[in-house]
């Protein structure tokens, strides 16, 4: 059977190889997991169960249940003082990943250039490629704490791009960007008329100050699509529920694809999400404080081992420099000899090589044991 060229052009995720290696062993402590170790708050799970008991198993409106869209808009208004019309500017999707995919398909014409700040979540580059776009790699640097700068955008040719994709708090680095740091990026986007796709799925997991959204900067809401969801903040990854916020024309275009491919996001998950927004703020705060403790623990342990690691202040990742230049070889050896799985930074694209993504979405006892093993291994 003939496969489409654009699919053949995209290699399988580099994560896959480490997954297979880790699966071969029994005693693995994995610091390679990109999802919370908590279960979704009970209140949200109960809402899902309740919706099933009441027989709420039909499709919802394409854009998502009106009540959920209103709750999302109210949450965002409350949090960022940004107003989105629930009827026109909110799209509920099967995870933020689906929202990103439909955004690429809705906004990218074949040959369009899409600047992607990297290292970054593994789906952006393939998503752009599947949509026929050309990726412009914009690497960020450890020396700048993996913050995206206007100079990097300029230097790597983002001025000619149609779109800019960024993700802060960042997977895989754990970097965050303050309002002041976002300002020059916003200016660059306005000057060069870039549409910005801002993946803010880790927004709730910001440990130094409040998360800043680029959409809140002057003149940005009208050129920005914000992606968020329930996977990370509410530990609901498996329920697959996210959303996009943006100008009506963009959201309508995204919905046109979404209505044909998904029809509507999973109904059970939408009920859980509504409850999450209404009742799970404390649970999020509690998980956040647990992550923050582990973050401090991991960063201190790396510092004590003499492993160079910038102070990641978001998501649940640290991104230390690999003790050996070849991070992939180091990660493989570490897994083989100690059973600790980490992901080499190179799989997350430009700027990631030579680093390791270390997830601290793992209980403290395992985290301590993993750090002890790493210390012995590098010592």
């Amino acid at each position, binding site marked *: 059977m003939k496969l489409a060229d654009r699919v053949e052009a995209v290699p399988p*995720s580099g*994560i896959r190889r*480490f*997954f297979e290696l*880790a*699966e071969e062993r029994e005693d*693995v402590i*994995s610091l*390679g*997991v*990109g*999802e919370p*170790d908590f*279960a979704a708050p009970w209140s949200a799970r109960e809402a899902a169960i309740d919706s099933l008991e009441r027989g709420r198993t039909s499709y919802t409106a394409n854009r998502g249940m009106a009540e959920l869209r209103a709750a999302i808009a109210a949450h965002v208004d409350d949090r960022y003082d940004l107003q989105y019309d629930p009827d026109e500017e909110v799209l509920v999707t099967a995870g933020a990943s689906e929202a990103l995919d439909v955004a690429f398909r809705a906004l990218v014409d074949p040959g369009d250039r899409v600047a992607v700040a990297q290292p970054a*979540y*593994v*789906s952006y580059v393939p998503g752009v490629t599947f949509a026929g776009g050309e990726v412009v790699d914009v690497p960020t640097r450890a020396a700048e704490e993996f913050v995206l700068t206007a100079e990097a955008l300029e230097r790597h040719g983002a001025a000619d791009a149609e779109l800019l994709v960024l993700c802060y708090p960042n*997977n895989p680095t754990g970097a965050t960007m303050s309002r002041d740091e976002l300002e020059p990026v916003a200016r660059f986007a306005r000057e060069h008329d870039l549409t910005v796709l801002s993946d803010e799925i880790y927004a709730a997991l910001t440990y130094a100050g409040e998360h800043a959204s680029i959409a809140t900067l002057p003149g940005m809401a009208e050129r920005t699509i914000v992606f968020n969801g329930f996977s990370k903040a509410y530990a609901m990854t498996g329920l697959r529920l996210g959303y996009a916020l943006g100008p009506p024309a963009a959201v309508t275009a995204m919905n046109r694809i979404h209505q044909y491919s998904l029809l509507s996001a999973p109904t059970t998950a939408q009920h859980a999400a509504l409850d999450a927004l209404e009742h799970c703020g404390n649970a999020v705060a509690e998980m956040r*404080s647990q992550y923050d*403790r*582990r973050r*401090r*623990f991991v960063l*201190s*342990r790396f510092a004590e081992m003499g492993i160079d690691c910038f102070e990641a202040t978001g998501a649940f990742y640290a991104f230390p420099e690999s003790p050996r230049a070849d991070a992939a070889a180091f990660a493989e050896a570490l897994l083989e000899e100690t059973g600790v*799985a980490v*992901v080499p930074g190179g799989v997350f694209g430009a700027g990631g090589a030579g680093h390791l993504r270390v997830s601290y979405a793992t209980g*403290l006892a395992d985290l*301590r044991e993993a750090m002890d093993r790493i210390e012995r291994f590098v010592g």
Partner: protein
Amino acid sequence: MNGRDEDASSRDDGGDRAELRALLSENARHSIADLARLADMDEAAVEATIEELESEGVIRGYQAVVDPSRVEPEPVRALVECNVTLDRETGYDDIAARLVEFPEANSLRLVSGDYDFALEVEGDSMSEVSRFIAEKVAPVPEITQTVTHYIMDTYKERGIEMSDGHEDDRLSVSP
């Protein structure tokens, strides 16, 4: 007045004190070094703060949470509802001061609702616990009535579940 309330400053917890209290409540066996890493403090400050919390009586002790069903012989525990009568000379604190002296009394709380004290009692056998309640608790002059509930099974104690917990069924490596 209750002696615990005399020093109001001991309840004025914030910042590092609150963080250490939370960490120790979760796991009292964290090492000083780990507490320092988790709370972003230096070790000397951790030790000093814990000493402070202990000497002020904020932290009253450290215990293991034991699953009674895994202990041979399984201890017998009962919740005893106690109703009391007060007079000018005798307040709740006075009655409590007598009850806490019994080593069989595991916990004692003044509660709102249909009865006054919730007393948890532990012994080696049902007869031992019954005898204790009949001979030591019920005869206390201010105690007008007791209702005893034997504990049949324990599912969660001090925030810790007694089941073997949820398997981590996440993919071992994911993006």
